[in-house]
């Protein structure tokens, strides 16, 4: 049983997409969590529903909606086309699929950490001369570290397993967008691919277990500290 070059590429691609997606989602997730934890404005409930939507929607639905938006016939897609930017069927699409699908997980975790911060701390900081941005950077960010790390690892794990939305907007392109789940699917559709499919599944399971272990360790350590 051996790996074909395309299989190694799939594993590496999954890792690359996961890392990039996490880096992209972090600032966005932090901002979203901050809005939901501390914001008081009309339409907050609507925003909350929107951010949580990908969690309950089947990933293929998310993928299809993204395709409608970013495809060559889509509103955003047409605009990007004129700028010469192609999203569909590139690894960027795989990143976008992971970001959208995993976003609720990240926001949820960070928000929880933020809501655990004593309001008096923020009030004290303000009264000592810290503006809103200052408070975010010097108080909120350090104190939500645990939530950020836990949320990131969960997000990364989800991104490694992303299939439904990915296959629709990034397509199955070996070496380009074929991530590990897509490779497994490809092999699983073919009677001759059983053994390789199983092997790749094993890799996937080990990957995920590793991430989840890290996630648990982070939670445990911060709690003890």
């Amino acid at each position, binding site marked *: 049983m051996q790996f074909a070059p395309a299989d190694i590429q799939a594993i590496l691609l999954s890792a690359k997409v996961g890392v990039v997606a996490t880096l992209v989602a972090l600032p966005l997730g932090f901002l979203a969590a901050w809005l939901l934890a501390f914001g008081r404005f009309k339409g907050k409930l609507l925003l909350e529903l929107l951010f949580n939507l990908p969690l309950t929607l089947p990933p293929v639905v998310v993928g299809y909606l993204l395709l409608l938006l970013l495809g060559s016939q889509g509103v955003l897609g047409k605009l990007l086309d004129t700028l010469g930017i192609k999203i569909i069927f590139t690894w960027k699409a795989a990143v976008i699929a992971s970001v959208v699908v995993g976003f609720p997980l990240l926001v949820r975790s960070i928000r929880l950490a933020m809501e655990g911060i004593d309001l008096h*701390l923020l*009030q004290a900081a303000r009264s*000592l001369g810290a503006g809103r941005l200052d408070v975010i950077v010097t108080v909120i960010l350090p104190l939500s570290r645990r939530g950020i790390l836990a949320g990131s690892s969960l997000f990364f794990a989800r991104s490694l397993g992303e299939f439904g939305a990915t296959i629709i907007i990034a397509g199955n392109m070996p070496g380009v967008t074929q991530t590990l789940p897509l490779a497994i699917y490809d092999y699983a559709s073919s009677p001759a691919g059983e053994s390789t499919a199983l092997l790749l599944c094993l890799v996937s399971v080990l990957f995920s277990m590793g991430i989840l272990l890290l996630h648990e360790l982070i939670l445990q350590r911060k709690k003890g500290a």
Partner: protein
Amino acid sequence: MELKLQLRKQQGSFLLELELNVCGERIGIFGPSGSGKSTLVNLLAGLTRPDSGSILLNGQPLFDSSTGANVATEQRRIAMVFQRHALFPHLSVRKNLQYGYQRCPTKERRIDLAEVAELLEITDLMGQMPDTLSGGQSQRVALGRAILASPRLLLMDEPLSALDDDLRYRIIPYLNLVSERFKIPFVFISHSLVEMRLMADQVAVLEKGRLTGVVSPEQLARQRMGQSPAGYINLLEMGVPKERQGLLAFPWAGGELLLSGNAETESGLFELSSKDIILCKRHPDAISARNLLPCTVRSLFEAGSKIGVELDCKGGTLVAEIVPDAARELEVTVGSIIWAAIKASAFRRL
């Protein structure tokens, strides 16, 4: 400091509406829970926005709904101290103390770290993290942090309520000292009449979102005597005691008071409730109370259903409370001589 407020704020079913005009260095805000004290503090600090009105600090508007002026919290230079220290858990004591200092414009900085640390006796705690500090230490650090921001006003929301009794009364001197040394006025909320008497020049009394008056702490204590379960607390400054027949004789005013033999042999401030002073028309004979003081009635006042009797005992003042019936029976009038009988065990060190 001059503080001029005219505020209106609706929060759900609660309405705060008041007009306050005070001059002083130490203003207390007194009232039962739900009277709007915390709301008022939040409005002063700029954490909440009034529906309408104005806030002027030393003539400078912090908020004015007619002009649309609203100075942001971080620019008001009003530092806050809370009931629970609110020290930043991820920063060391030193970093906590420096937080406000670093954010204070350089030319406005009047106070330095070493001086404050020495005054509050927290120099040894610099490198520690807040979770290793005791309650009293935390509050002193919180106070230091607020002072180091060189604020125009120190705003404190029940700063001593979370502390044990003996600790509480040991922090009060720090508060007064710091305020005097660095010339920082403070406004503080408390529901303790004794704290008001020990810290405030004037007290603004709130009830159900309205200001019912601005009085001196002494007046407040006397007004509340009838309602308060502890009565009026006499605060007595006593000197170093001498032992006498198994009791301790503490010098007080022009004479001395006998306290139980197991009290600490140090000078200090003592509490005596108005309820624990028994009045007699004549010198009582064969009575178990060890303190029998001849006093002159200086004044009488009504306090709810009781009568407050202000007594002059050898230069010192004692306030006792008796029912109107007793007052009539003993024919208590201003200027009359009356005997005060107090048990040695009735005193409590502050």
